[in-house]
């Protein structure tokens, strides 16, 4: 087959993608976290400069450097994304495994919670939670963390149900292993690949949602550099032709999200026994 004669096999290519994506995201994250706030300080002498040598991404209405603001904002978004994914995935894993292994009333309850959360438009739920907690970093963090678990829970639960029906799991039960032991030794290891991919694919969602509710004014407040804030500010100036205020932050955000997606999709191919050896 053609694929086998290609210069790089899928596995190598996938690894390259993953490394590239990881370098970009880790780079933005670290650069943002370690950045001196002076880098994007107010400087009224350089208001509305178009992109150029001094300011690669131009400056905004207060003379703040857009490159530094964007990177700082994006790194905040990534932090929120990571934390939210971590929390969501722990909830999802615990709820999914428990529902499937214990079954009965607990299963119904978890399903009920999942339906409840998914029955409401995601963004509305986010806005409600964030607003209730007084917006800001805390509101966004809780909002994003507490609303991303239902889909993953469903996937994990379905996977566990399937594995539990396998003869070897049934055999383990007959041999006198407790539910916890079976879950830990025989079920969890098999759910892990699906789960990991699910978690990685959660990142872009979390980041987009952080940016969205901030854009709508229910998230981070204007004095914090955040992609949502930057984009919503740029809307005020786009009518007068300040295109760079919207374009570059948009591209940065887009790149981050697509790269997470690339990592997730490629990992799926690697970890899936059906396509892992192509």
């Amino acid at each position, binding site marked *: 087959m053609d694929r086998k004669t290609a210069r790089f096999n899928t596995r190598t290519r996938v690894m390259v993608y993953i490394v590239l994506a990881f370098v970009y995201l880790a780079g933005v994250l670290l650069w943002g976290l370690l950045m001196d706030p002076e880098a994007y300080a107010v400087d*009224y002498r350089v208001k509305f400069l178009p992109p150029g040598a001094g300011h690669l991404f131009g400056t905004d209405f207060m003379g703040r450097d857009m490159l530094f603001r964007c990177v700082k904002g994006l790194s905040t978004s990534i932090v929120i994304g990571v934390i939210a994914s971590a929390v969501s995935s722990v909830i999802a894993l615990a709820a999914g495994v428990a529902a499937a292994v214990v079954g009965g009333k607990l299963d119904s309850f978890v399903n009920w919670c999942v339906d409840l959360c998914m029955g409401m438009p995601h963004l509305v739920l986010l806005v409600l939670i964030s607003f209730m907690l007084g*917006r800001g970093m805390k509101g966004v963090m809780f909002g994003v963390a507490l609303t991303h678990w239902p889909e993953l829970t469903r996937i994990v639960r379905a996977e566990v149900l399937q594995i539990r029906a396998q003869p070897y799991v049934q055999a383990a039960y007959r041999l006198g292993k407790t539910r916890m032991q079976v879950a830990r030794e025989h079920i969890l290891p098999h759910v892990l690949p699906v789960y990991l991919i699910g978690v990685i694919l959660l990142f872009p969602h979390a980041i987009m949602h952080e940016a969205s509710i901030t854009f709508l004014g229910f998230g981070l407040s204007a004095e914090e550099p955040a992609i949502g804030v930057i*984009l919503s500010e740029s809307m005020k100036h786009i009518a*007068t032709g300040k295109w760079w205020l919207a374009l570059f932050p948009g591209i940065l955000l887009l790149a981050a999200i*697509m790269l997470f997606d690339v990592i997730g999709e490629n990992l799926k191919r690697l970890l899936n026994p059906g396509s892992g050896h192509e």
Partner: protein
Amino acid sequence: MKKKTIALLLASAMAAALFAGCGGKKDGNIGKETASAKEETSASGETDDDGIVCYVGHGFWGGSLDPVKGAYAYGYDFTNNALLRVAPDSSYTGDLAESWEVAPDARTYTFHLKNGIKFQDGSDFSAEDVVFTYETVMERQGDNEDVDLTKLAQVEAPDEKTVVFTLKEPYSPFLDATAQLGIVPSDSYDSAAFDEKPVGTGPWKVVQYDAEQQLIVEANEEYFDGAPKIQRVTFVDMDNEAAFSNAQSGQLDIVMVQPNYASEEIKGMHIEELETMDVRNISLPCRPRQMMRDSKGNDVEVGNDVTSDVHVRRALSIGIDRERIIENAFNGVGRPAYGFTKNLEWGNAPEGQDGQADEAKEILEKAGWSDGDGDGVREKDGVKCEFEVYTPSDEQDRYNLAAAVAEEAKGLGISIIVKQTSWDEIYKTSNTGGVVWGFGQYNPIVVSQLFNSDGILKGDFDNKPAYENKKADALIGEAIGAAEYEEAVSKWKEVQSVYAEEYPYLFIVNIEHCYFVSDRLDISVDTQIPHPHGHGIPIICNMKDWSLK
């Protein structure tokens, strides 16, 4: 499926970037009326209809148009006239009333009405209509938060052309209410119908009203003070940015813009920066941090350990450079303000001088604020010279202003942390931090609201710095109790000199309202009155004098 959702999200993000551009078209085509009106006006000045299309701010046509429920309580005529109106020099002058006098007991106001005035429905205007309007508002004061008649005991009409008001107690700001409350006809008043189509004596008749979309008015040819020159005016409601784009494509004759747009250019239009009495100031809590009991009996935290030092407040006021702040935050549009503006009869801003950074630093040093640890921020007894200033998140201008002030304060060694939040949050935080406020009204009662110590911890706006000065309180009492308006004015002025030395509010700028106006339209700048607080809408104050060239 996941991929699809992500793709959708991304698509919406990109669409968002284009929003401002297409939003205009979408918003612009509300109803056929607007569209056709626009076609007429955009046909290079040759209009059969003699109409114009205006955008004077977002959301101001949202509520009821009924004067009884507070519509157009701005002190100028629109669909209805009040007894008095505000003149271009901001004094009160007769509108439906020919003359008026106040009895020496300061409780009885007598108005003599003009003759021969008719309502738009053809019925005669008489004293009975005035009595009806005032009594209706008194009965339903809850519906009307713009005209306060709680001090009014009764209103009578001894004859067709005379109205006598009796107050419960002397209250000189009552005169302002008579300039704000538009009179409705007693015979045909219909509370529901007047929400959309009020009938009055005014220069404009409502043709069509769609809340938060558009308002179309037509000239009242029978108007007693001369018919308007323009036949038809359409007001459209949209976003500021969408309105700007619409103006660029030649669809609007007037568009209100934020000061940051003032340096743009639109073909066929010119910029007008109109005088207002609207000032922006920052409240600075005057007491050290402590617990106090509010009017509802709750214990609340009040005060701020930094701003409670009058030296800090004084240093800020003289040390910052207001011109530079206006340049930075407002694109140079606006005038430095040190108090209520001189274009108000009762306004008495102290002659200020700012930009004296060295003197300001000296004041701070003498008061014990010095930068010991070299971080650029002064401290005193372990307290950092730092406080928070809150701005409402729906007004970018106020944030820009606070940020520009913070930059100036930084030079003095004072750190101001600017925060944006919702109004609900601001009402709470305003007890302990600074807040950027906007005030501008003809009624001098605002001085009492801001500086009278009996307002502490009462309302959402009243005396937020918790300022207390016995002399100011006494003078406010005298001003309110004055029988002669001139006497009240002089007392109000005196109050302002009393608090001027203590800077409970840091006055910064007297804003100007910016509009792009079509070159074919003359908005008669000479007869404009100083605009009250009200964003863009007050430009219509003299709309009957506008003409097309």
